[in-house]
Structures are given as structure tokens and as C-alpha cells.
């Protein structure tokens, strides 16, 4: 565990790193170093440059200026392969595994074990089994990766890194799609990595986690390294202040709104996975959906919104029975949905920020099928300003934005549509504290205006702070309902697990 080098020089050092994208100075003369056997947290607001810095370390982006040293030696990281050979391994914000392969194939892709000219499947499955055990992933190595949950896929990524004998493991928002329990498992693994003398770089927007797991915190703001905190200095409020450069409180609170008529009621909804789903949400209300990942919360919303097929069940909107067979029907009845996976379901990555924001409201922005481009630009501008979306212009392609800013674009798109009933599936995933507060405020404001809001979240403090009522799901069924007064992390978890 102890670093044996006498002068205790850091294992890996990045010096004077600068990176410029068209219109954006993403990194400005950044110094960053890591030591073996330590967890260093890299924090900052959306678009601060965290992912960019890590992508440079991983050989995905080329740096404009700066040097990288490993054990004091200047190294040249040109591409992902050279980073891998130097023992640097990244677990990305976006999952990158190949869905139609099985687990063992995925772990050994590109370096398959061989027996003569044949692939030695048995040996691969044997070793994969051992690796899965190390990350506490309890599935058969022949399972197709597409069948795993996001959390399990993340664990698989860690297993892959372990099999590559990585010295430095970078985790870019690994917990953003994990539940509490799964996060605990991941932290157990990180602990073990430390004991194996691996350096872990950990990126997250969740302060409790950072305080809990890190030995050191490095803070980026607007592409500059603004400071470092040693273990004993790590404290939530202090990190936040350094990140945003101003005071901000991290509490969720829904303001009181007048809760009136039932806006949406779902009766006896069944699909091949969901059983007997019954719930309603009123105007002015925020209804929280809690449960473990895989409990079926997103599936409920997908069925209600007309994305997935229903086997049976009725939907009433403002007291009237309606048929929702497709998303077109859903929008017609004033529903909006911020989906769970922004890249697959939320955004057209190759389109401009502006065009993504307006995509669900084109009818409103047009006369006789012709888009009023001035109105469209103004709409986009309004949302870019009010959500502080960090982009050089509204013409920027969404794929060039940071993860959190992409999420803001998805939310803007559905806000722009002005729904009566708004469903948000993990709306603050990957969003920094400031913006998170912004989104909570917005939800609160919408409820005040009489919008019925449904929010799925795996973050219990968020659920408890924002919801008037909480529906708890487990394995495709609704286990029960808790009012805000009675809500606590313990009783929600108890319901969600049993």
C-alpha cells in the first residue's frame, strides 16, 4: 500500500495541459497528478473539462500543449492503445461495450485466448468467471451483454480493466446510473483496487460519494485547475464552493403548490414484465417513482407514453379515457417524457443544439409546415440562457457538448413542448449541483403552474425532497405508496427490496 519510492513523486503527472475545441478552451494549463493506492476525485461543473482531461490521458483526444509523466518519465500517449499499454484504463461516462457479444468475449475482445489457431473459449470463460467474482457480478459468463443492466455493464467494465492489469483506472461518472446498493458494491471494489495499489480517478457529481471515497479532491472550473483538497480538508460545502466559485446549497425542496384534479390515471396496466400497475398523478403534484434499477419504473413510463406495447390497461387523462398507441398520441394528449438514456433516446447527436431543443415543438414554431427560424432561434436561446447550457453557439452539434450539458438539452426540449403531464426519468443524472438545483426549481415551478410531474430517480434524497407522494416498485409491480411526511430512506429501501 505504501508508496516505496523515497521522494514520493506521484506515479502519474500531467503538466500544463491545454486543449482547445472550436470556440471552446476546454482545458487551460492544467496540472494533475495521481498516486498509486489512492482515490482522487476530479470534480467540476458540467463542461468544466473533466472528461476532456481524462480523454487526453486515455489517448482519445490529442492535447494541444502539455506533458505527461509516468514514474518521472515523459510518455507519449497518442492513441487508446498506447494508453492501455502504459496501464491507463478508462470506464467511460457512456458505455462502450458491444451488446451482442457475451461477457467473456467482451472482456477479451481484441486479445482472445488461443489454442493453436482456434479461440480457446473455455479458458476465456474460466478467467472471466474469476474476474466477475472480483467485482461481485453474479451472472453467467455466457450471458449476452445486452441483457445486463447498466449497473452490471459498469461492473463488467471494471472487470475488464482488472484483466488488463491497469495501474490507473479512470471512472467517469460510474455511479450516475447505479442505485445505492450497487454503488456500495462499486465502492467495495474501489477499496480493493486501492489495496492492490491501483490509482483510481473518480469523477462524480454526487458529493456524499466524493466525501466518502476519495483521498484527495481536484477541482476544475472553466477548464482551469482551481485547487486541491487533501483527505482531511474534504468537505461537501467546501468542494461545492470551489466548483462554482460561489455559495450554493445542495438541498432539494419542492415548494408548495395547489394540488387539484387528477391529470393522469393508469389502471390495471400489464405488459410482459409489468403486473397490475395502478397509479395516478394530480395537477400540481410531483409523483416520485423509487425502486432499484430494473424494478420496471422506466418500463411503466414507456408503456404509458406509447413507446412499448401494453397487454392490457386503461389510461385516463383529465378524467377521460384515451388510447395511447404511439408517442404521437402521447404528445397529442399533452404528455412529455425526458427519457432515461440521453444518447439513445433523448438526442439526435449529429444535430445542432437548437434543432434538438425544438424537435418536439416544431408544430408550435411553424406556419403551414414552414419552420419560423427566428422563433426557433429565440426558443433555443431562452433555454440555453435559463439552463446555462455551455455551448459556443446554438449551432453547435450536441455530440460536442459535455455529458451534463447534453442532459440539459434533453430537458429543454421537453420543457419547450409545454406539457400538461411531464414524466422525467432520472432527470438529474450527470448534472452538476448548480444545474440540478435549477432543474428542481423548474419542476417545482411547473407544478405550481398546474403541471402534473412524474419523476423517476434512483437518488433517494432527491426523491424524498421533491415528491409529494412516492410510488415504490419492485420487479415489475408496485409495492406501495409513501406520502412525503412518512418518507425516509429506510422505509423506501425496505419496500424496494422486499
Amino acid at each position, binding site marked *: 500500500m505504501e508508496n516505496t519510492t523515497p521522494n514520493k513523486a506521484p506515479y502519474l503527472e500531467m503538466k500544463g495541459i491545454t486543449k482547445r475545441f472550436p470556440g471552446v478552451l476546454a482545458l487551460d494549463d492544467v496540472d494533475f497528478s495521481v498516486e498509486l493506492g489512492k482515490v482522487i476525485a476530479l470534480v467540476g461543473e458540467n463542461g468544466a473539462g473533466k472528461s476532456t482531461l481524462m480523454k487526453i490521458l486515455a489517448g482519445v483526444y490529442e492535447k494541444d500543449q502539455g506533458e505527461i509523466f509516468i514514474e518521472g518519465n515523459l510518455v507519449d500517449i497518442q492513441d487508446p492503445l498506447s494508453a492501455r499499454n502504459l496501464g491507463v484504463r478508462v470506464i467511460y461516462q457512456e458505455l462502450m461495450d458491444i451488446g451482442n457479444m457475451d461477457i467473456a468475449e467482451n472482456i477479451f475482445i481484441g486479445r482472445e485466448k488461443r489454442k493453436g489457431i482456434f479461440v480457446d473459449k473455455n479458458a476465456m470463460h474460466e478467467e472471466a468467471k474469476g474476474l466477475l467474482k472480483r467485482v461481485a457480478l453474479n451472472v453467467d459468463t455466457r450471458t449476452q451483454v445486452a441483457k445486463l443492466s447498466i449497473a452490471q455493464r459498469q461492473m463488467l467494465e471494471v472487470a475488464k480493466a482488472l484483466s488488463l492489469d491497469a495501474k490507473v483506472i479512470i471512472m467517469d461518472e460510474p455511479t450516475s446510473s447505479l442505485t445505492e446498493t450497487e454503488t456500495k458494491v462499486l465502492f467495495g471494489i474501489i477499496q480493493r483496487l486501492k489495496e492492490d495499489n491501483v490509482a483510481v480517478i473518480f469523477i462524480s457529481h454526487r458529493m456524499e460519494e466524493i466525501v466518502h471515497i476519495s483521498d484527495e479532491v481536484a477541482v476544475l472550473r472553466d477548464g482551469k485547475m482551481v485547487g486541491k483538497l487533501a483527505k482531511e480538508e474534504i468537505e461537501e460545502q467546501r468542494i461545492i464552493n470551489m466548483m462554482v466559485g460561489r455559495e450554493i446549497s445542495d438541498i432539494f425542496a419542492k415548494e408548495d403548490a395547489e394540488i387539484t384534479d387528477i391529470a393522469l390515471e393508469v389502471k390495471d396496466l400489464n405488459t410482459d414484465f409489468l403486473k397490475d400497475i395502478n397509479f395516478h398523478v394530480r395537477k400540481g403534484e410531483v409523483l416520485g417513482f423509487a425502486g432499484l434499477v430494473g424494478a420496471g419504473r422506466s418500463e411503466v413510463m414507456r408503456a404509458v407514453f406509447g413507446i412499448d406495447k401494453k397487454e392490457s390497461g386503461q389510461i385516463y387523462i383529465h378524467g377521460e379515457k384515451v388510447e395511447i398507441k404511439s*408517442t*404521437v398520441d402521447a404528445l397529442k394528449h399533452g404528455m412529455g417524457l425526458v427519457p432515461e438514456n440521453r444518447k439513445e*433516446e433523448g438526442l439526435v447527436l449529429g444535430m445542432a443544439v437548437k434543432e434538438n431543443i425544438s*424537435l418536439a415543438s*416544431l408544430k408550435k414554431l*411553424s406556419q403551414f409546415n414552414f419552420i419560423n427560424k427566428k422563433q426557433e432561434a429565440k426558443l433555443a436561446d431562452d433555454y440555453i440562457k435559463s439552463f446555462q447550457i455551455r455551448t459556443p*453557439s*446554438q*449551432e453547435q452539434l450536441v455530440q460536442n457538448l459535455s455529458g451534463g450539458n447534453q442532459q440539459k438539452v434533453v430537458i429543454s426540449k421537453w420543457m419547450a413542448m409545454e406539457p400538461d403531464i411531464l414524466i422525467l426519468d432520472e432527470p438529474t443524472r450527470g448534472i452538476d449541483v448548480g444545474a440540478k438545483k435549477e432543474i428542481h426549481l423548474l419542476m417545482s415551478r411547473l407544478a405550481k403552474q398546474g403541471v402534473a410531474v412524474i419523476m423517476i430517480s434512483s437518488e433517494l434524497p432527491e426523491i424524498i425532497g421533491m415528491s409529494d407522494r412516492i410510488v415504490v416498485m419492485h420487479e415489475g409491480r408496485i409495492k406501495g405508496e409513501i406520502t412525503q411526511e412518512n418518507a425516509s430512506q429506510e422505509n423506501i429501501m425496505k419496500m424496494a427490496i422486499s
Partner: protein
Amino acid sequence: MTDKTIGKQNGFTAAVKRAVKSSSFNIFIVLLLMSIAMYIVSKPFRSIDNVLSIARNFSTYAITGIGVSMVIIAGGIDLSLGSVFGFAGVIACMGMVNLGWAVFPSILLGLAAGAAFGLFNGMLVVRAKLPPFIATLGTLSIARSLCYILTEGYPVTGVPTTFLFLGQGYITGIPTPIWMMIIVAIIFAVFLNNTITGRRIYALGGNEEATRISGININRVKLLAYTLCSLLAGFAGIITASKLGVGQPTAGQGFELDAIAAVVIGGASLDGGEGTVTGTILGAAIMGVLRNALVLLSIKSHWQSLIIGFVIIIAVTADQLKKSRGK
């Protein structure tokens, strides 16, 4: 004040900047270099007649290319358009010759015949959920076969001379097909850039699932894209029939490859979501100048396809390289 924040630039220099940045600019430079090279080495290339004849020839590629570009932008592909091109030409001529219809209704009949095949393609993709490649490959065969069945393999002759104006005539000294190309280009550039439907075609090709979740009827968008594609292929086929003066059942064989090549050279991505009308016209122009050059330089016809094949491969490779470097 808002002008700046909106990011819109005004003035001539800004317009130039935007043009240089746009994806079509590289293709334009290639076209320019090719033309300059030809201008230097070949005397006959320099005549205005030659330039007009090149433009007349590629205008049908451009019109068809604009059609198929919509399908490609929407994330699909249409291999049937060469056959639909031939079929529409044959039907229009048969309207005049066999049914004795007037010129204009016959043209409409030909267009309707083309569009019908597009609708058929669209239904196969949307309802039967066939991969576009397979569906339109089937249509390629069916439409061509219908050309032969209806004509028994003989060209449809005896069209009225007024019909010939579409392919052979001139308006203010410029061949009619070029005017047709310009009109089609303007209409569809406006359609793709300024209408809801156009925007949805791009969104669909960029991310089908996100587009569906945005409450857009993606099936309708697909049907429309295939229909418009075949409509324009049919229009090009009718222009060609007029140029030839007969309805050739063999017209447009292999045409799909040239049209798709023009679109791809013009910067569209076969993955969908990308492509422009300007790019497609420039792509068609490159193909046109190239074919003309090969003839003027007396390259043996056996070699011509080989060279064109390489040009397509080089153009697409260059585009891929540019994209992967941008990441």
C-alpha cells in the same frame, strides 16, 4: 443585441466564412480543380456548348440524386430508382402513344407511376419491416420487368414533338433539363431546410428512437421520403425519355449507382442524418465532368467505369477520413 447571442452572422465576409466552413465547400474545390485541369488540357472542353451539354447530362443525375438523398438522409437506401426511372419514362410515353393522352396528363401519369413505386417501397419498409436494401432490390427487379412486359421489349415510339421540349428544348438559351434541375433543387432545398417534414427527415436518420420518442410519426416520414425519391427518379426518367424521343424499357439501368454516388460524393452519410441538396448537385456535377473528360480524353469505354469506380471510392474514403479526424 440578440443578433449576436443568437450566433447569426451578417454581411458578406460572414457569408463567405459560412460557405467555406460548410461541408459542400471541399466538393466545390474538387469540381473547380477538375474543371481547370480539363480547361488546360482539352480544347473542346472549353466551348460553352460542351459545358451546357455536361450540365444537361448531369441534371437528370442531380434530380434523381436529390430524390435518393432524402431517403439516405432518413437513414434508408433506394436501389430501385434506376428501374423506376425507366418505368416512369415508359408509362409517360405509353400515355401519349397508346392511350392517346395529351402531353401534360401523360407526364403526370408517369410521375404517378413513379411515386406509386415509392409508396410501395415505403410500405415494404414500414409495414412489412423489410430492410430497405432488400425491399428496394425487389422493386428494382419488379419495375424493370414491368417495363419489358408492357412494351414487349420494344421502345415506345411516336411521341408528339411537343413532348420533346422537356428534354431537348431551350429556355433563354439554357437547356430545359437544367431549368428543371434548378427548380427541383430550389423546391427541395427549401423543403429540407425550412419545413417541419424536412427537419424530421434529418432527425429520423440521425436517431430513429429519439425521433420517435419526440412524438413524431416516423412511419409517415419514411413513406414520404421513399415516395418523393421515386417521384423525382420518375421525373428524371420522363425527361430522359423526352431527350431520347422514345420510351426505352432499358432506360436507367445501373442509374441507381451513379445517383447514389453523386449523393455520397456530395457529402451525405450512408449512416443517415447528413446530406444537402447543394452537395448532391456538386456531386452530380463531378460525375458529369468526369464522364465528359473521359470521353474528351478518348479513354476507352472499358476503362471508364473502372476510373469512375475508383473516384467514388476515393471520394468516400476522403470523407470518412475527414470525419474520423474530427473526433
